[in-house]
């Protein structure tokens, strides 16, 4: 049963610290399918378990960075649209009368995003120093911050001083709002799932040093996941800064 990964191992073995191979016999099955031929065939060695744990950690690392790459290209498309329409300035309608989306809301969105990201990074440092509570507070604050950003962004859309199709700037701004909501929602969701999982894991890994230092597979994967998420928040903050400059400052 090791195919389901070390996460399962931590949940299925009697002693979570043990890396001994376990052999789970599957006796029940959906609509009585026969698993006997497979059950018990897999005898895993500690090396195999450890190897796959490394692979899983690596996959989380790769996945986190790849997500940043994916989003970077998406936002690059938006940035391209911004500069392309700006330089084309068709009918002098890039930005007539220097229209700007509500600046106070915009500044708040920017500030909260960046603050949440910084808070998370700080929180992760505290987490590494075994100050889990600090990290939890930072994390949940960031979740609140993310939700606040989304709310503000939606509210801002109802309060625009321009019609969406009135200029290139207006169009890009609507596009930015939609994409920012998606990105922040994704980042908030990610950190929230990690925080929630930490609550569920807490008891299981407490005697092993807790989330920051437990050597259990669950804890190791948890940390890899958290690391990717913090990086992603950093990326979101960079994006927020960049587009805040584009839409409100210059």
């Amino acid at each position, binding site marked *: 049963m090791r*195919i*389901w990964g070390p*996460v399962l191992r*931590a*949940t299925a*073995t*009697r002693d*979570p610290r043990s890396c001994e191979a376990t052999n*789970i016999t599957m*006796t029940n099955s959906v*609509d*009585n399918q*026969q698993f006997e031929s497979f059950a018990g*065939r*897999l*005898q895993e*060695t500690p*090396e195999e378990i450890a*190897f*796959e744990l*490394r*692979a*899983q950690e690596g*996959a*989380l*690392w*790769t*996945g986190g960075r*790849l*997500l940043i*790459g*994916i989003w970077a290209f*998406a936002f690059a498309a938006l940035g391209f*649209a911004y500069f*392309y*329409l700006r330089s084309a*300035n*068709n*009918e002098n*309608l890039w930005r007539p009368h220097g229209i700007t989306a509500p600046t106070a809301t915009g500044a708040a969105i920017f500030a909260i995003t960046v603050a949440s990201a910084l808070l998370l990074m700080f929180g992760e440092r505290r987490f*590494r120093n075994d100050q889990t509570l600090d990290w939890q507070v930072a994390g949940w604050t960031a979740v609140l911050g993310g939700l606040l950003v989304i709310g503000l962004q939606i509210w801002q859309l109802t309060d625009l001083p321009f019609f*969406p*199709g009135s*200029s*290139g700037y*207006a*169009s890009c701004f*609507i*596009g930015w709002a*939609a994409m920012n909501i998606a990105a922040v929602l994704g980042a908030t*969701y990610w950190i929230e*799932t990690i925080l*929630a*999982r930490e*609550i*569920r894991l807490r008891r*299981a890994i407490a005697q092993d040093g807790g989330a920051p230092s437990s050597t259990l597979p669950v804890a190791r994967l948890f*940390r*890899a996941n958290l*690391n990717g998420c913090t990086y992603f928040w950093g990326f979101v903050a960079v994006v927020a800064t960049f587009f805040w400059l584009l839409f409100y400052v210059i």
Partner: protein
Amino acid sequence: MAIDTSVSEFEYPGEEDVGTPAKPPPVWRRSAWLQPNVLWAIAGGVIGYLIGHWLGNVIASGYQQVQSSGQNNVAIVLGLSLGVAGWLAGIGALTYPLAKILGYEPSPSPPQQSWVRYFRMTEDHKVVGWQYAIGVLTFLFTGGLLAMLIRTELLSPTTHVFGPGTYIFLVSEHGTVMMMMATSAVVGPLGNWLVPLMIGSRRMAYPRVESFSFWIFMAGYLVILSAFFFGGFPTGWTGYAPLQTQANGGMDSYLVGFGVIGLGMILAGFNLAATIINYRAPGMNWGRVPIFVWGILATTALLTLATPTLVVAGLFGILDRTAETAFYVNEHGGSNFLWQNLFWFFGHPEVYIMALPGFGIVMEIMPVFTRKPLFAYKVAAAGMLGVALLSFFVWQHHLFQSGINPDMRPLFMLTTELISIPTGFLFLVTLGTLWKAKIRFDTPMLFCLGMLFNFLIGGVTGVFLSDVPVNVTVHGSFFVMAHFHYTIMGGLIFAMFAGFYFWFPKITGKTLNRKLSKWHFWTFFVFFNCTFFPLFLVGILGMPRRVFEYASNLQTLNDISSISAYFLGASFFFFIINVVWSIYLNPHPAPDNPWNSLGLEWQTPTPVPWYDFEHIPVVLNDPYHYGEADAPPVADLGKVLSAVGAPAGSVSHEDLGTGVEGDGDPRPPIL
């Protein structure tokens, strides 16, 4: 343990005694009908669509342009989007992501072994590969049917079978369906099925993401078909704005459909990249990775990085059509060039998303049937990575006549011609492999040779297209159309079938009928060339793409093409009959390794067990030691990794430098 893929209570360590059998799960857990499956997905899709449509009417029925035109794009877009969400919820793809909010772990489940598993989310990459195969063939046959209809209309230069709007819609739908199909034609079925087996892994890095990518791919199919109900769309698969902004409701299907498929492409690439990078078996260093995996890896780079541009461009299009922004409308401060730039920035890498896996297959299969090592392995891998990199810098060659950055034309002419250097490595490698070989002409090899023949024509005509003065004549003509059918159909689809025929015995455990296979190849190959070669001439004689009326002197060539197209379509019946006959009606079990391949995937038993490898193999060699007197085994599939009683002389991880516990591991440390 509860046995299903849905969420179960998290079990704390020590709470459960492994030795005692678990309670039988409740009936709703046991019944396949009550579990998430494709029927629930359809129901969810319908319900989601209805809710979205209603919501759209509530929001937008008062809009001025909705009242004037009687067409509520907001309702269509919301309906389709929520329909996709409902479909995903019905298949169970959202269960775990939502449960995660509450901190739940994925609940373990053993793989199901009944036929039901093909209609559900699954974490078995081989089942996903199968699902993709069926999905891709569904796309292919739908698009092929539309192609027959297009060729029917073009039988006569003036007499019309379809109305002009219907014809344009057929062309657009054919193009869109085929492009969506082609992006997953190899990566989906063969990539998912084979990559873990080839790299010696028991699993994908993100099996749920993998399954998700398939089911959203199928949702995309339904979304793009829904254009039939919304009056079609007139823009071709390129969807040029502002015609896009002007079009009927079917355009929303196109935009949402491409968005949905794009999401699937990103996720499929994401999973495969993470798997290839991290799950290679010990000893499977970059110099031993099968060349097909190199091809997939290069493709994943394009899938994950180029596709977001398409999704964002589609988002802008949707906003133009619903929120009345003006991204692509010139006189409101937008630019129609913006769509063309964004679309082709995705669109050209897209071409290589289709081509690269085909290269990989051909180069992977060639050594087996020539009984020779792959010639110039490093050049092959470098070539595919080079193509992937260069493909980001050529997009404006689609826009030579458009007036966009005309001063950049020499640069894009240069980059376009440069990309033919790494593309040409395909020929260096395959021709080198053929040198003094002992060629066996089994069906996969025939398809490989056919691919080389076609792709050469497709590639060389591409050089004509890249030359700006010649491009003035051939751009937007049937010449282009013939060119990319030669590269995509003649290249990718031939390679895909080479792969299907090659790996069929391993994938299905059944043996295909040899005669039917060869009939399929020869009819396919002959009629493919009869269909598309005349179109080069038609194009250079002045027939633009996507027209329903043409000069009467081109009728003969068009008729040759149309009639061949019917035979081309009919040639697929050899394939269908062969597969149905060999899998279902009269199955013959296949041997474990019928081609005597050295590839790691062939060293597994047939059918491949759900865990792929009983022990994680330790890879000792690259799989191309053909023609050697005592070819070393590609991997040690024995108990090398077991802690106790390792066979004498076996290789340990330390020797291999793969760093089980982190030492010497090339990946950066985590935390």
